């Protein structure tokens, strides 16, 4: 087994997590290898260090502080619920009113557009008719003048 793989077994060896066969293998390899022995000592020192770590001490009255936050959270939630009960129906009603109003305005606008189009069409028709009439009048006059001239001649 390569030295690097052996090194990865050292923590498990010190923690007693290896099988007996693997334990013997680690011990045999460490005996003849100063580098591996030093690595084993560092591993032991690291584990000792972690074992010497004391549990962190809490500030007293944890429950009191938590309870206070719980009450705050509950009152905030209650306030939201109260506001939701009061304001959501009002907001829905307001939204509906605005929607109805806007849809009404859209109908009026579309009528107005229709009306504008009608006026435009009407005016266009008048112009067209007037143009035609004018043309017709001109042609009549021309024909009258032509007739008069020919009569004079």
């Amino acid at each position, binding site marked *: 087994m390569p030295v690097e793989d052996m090194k990865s077994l050292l923590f498990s060896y010190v923690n007693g997590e290896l099988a007996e066969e693997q334990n013997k293998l680690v011990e045999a390899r460490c005996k003849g290898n100063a580098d591996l022995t030093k690595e084993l000592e560092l591993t032991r*020192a690291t584990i000792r*260090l972690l074992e*010497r*770590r004391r*549990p962190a001490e809490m500030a007293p009255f*944890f429950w009191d*502080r938590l309870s206070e936050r719980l009450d705050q*959270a509950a009152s905030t939630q209650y306030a939201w619920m109260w506001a939701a009960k009061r304001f959501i129906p009002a907001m829905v009603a307001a939204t509906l009113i605005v929607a109805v109003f806007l849809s009404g305005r859209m109908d009026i606008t579309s009528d107005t557009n229709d009306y504008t189009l009608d006026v435009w069409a009407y005016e266009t028709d008048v112009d067209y008719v007037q143009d035609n009439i004018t043309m017709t009048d001109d042609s009549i006059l021309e024909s009258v003048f032509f007739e008069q001239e020919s009569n004079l001649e």
Partner: protein
Amino acid sequence: MRSIEHEDPDIDLVERCKTGDRVAFRLLVEKYERTVFSTVVSVVGQSADADDIAQEVFLKMHRSIKNFKGECRFSVWLYRVTVNQCLDRIKHQKRRPQPVSLDGMIEASEGGFEGLFKDTSPDASEEYEQTQLQQAIQNVLNSLSAEHRVVITLKDIEGRSQEQIAEILKCPVGTIKSRLTRAREALKERLRPFYETWISGE
């Protein structure tokens, strides 16, 4: 699904808690507050945040306990909430693991780094030295990545089995094994310069 109702010692309190029983909630908090706080300190570091995070864990537990279906033991579920809360906080604060320098370490532990490896008896007269030592150990832990800190905390500080850690972190046992190996190697590498200094000074 495996029924764990008879295995989980907290199931009665949990069921009462689900109905809004504040006394049951308090009993659960008092049972687990030290473990939760200790885990938070190991992962996040001793700071004013630790108490706040521990409170957040129990507030979240209070909010979400109705969703607890009993697929695992309550304690496993609570530690999962704890670890996730710690990781969320670290992510939120965008903390990056800082390399530990020898000078920084000496400064942080006020010279207590020498005590990292020597055996000291838990004598009351050595209380100051112990405080320095604990600070130095925490500094070394803080220098690891959050992921590595979590597995080192759960395995080597709190003594949980790899199977339990896999259950808490919702990972395969193989992933935990390899992550633990990498975390321990990283920890050893952080300690190597101090160890060599200590050996040469002995």
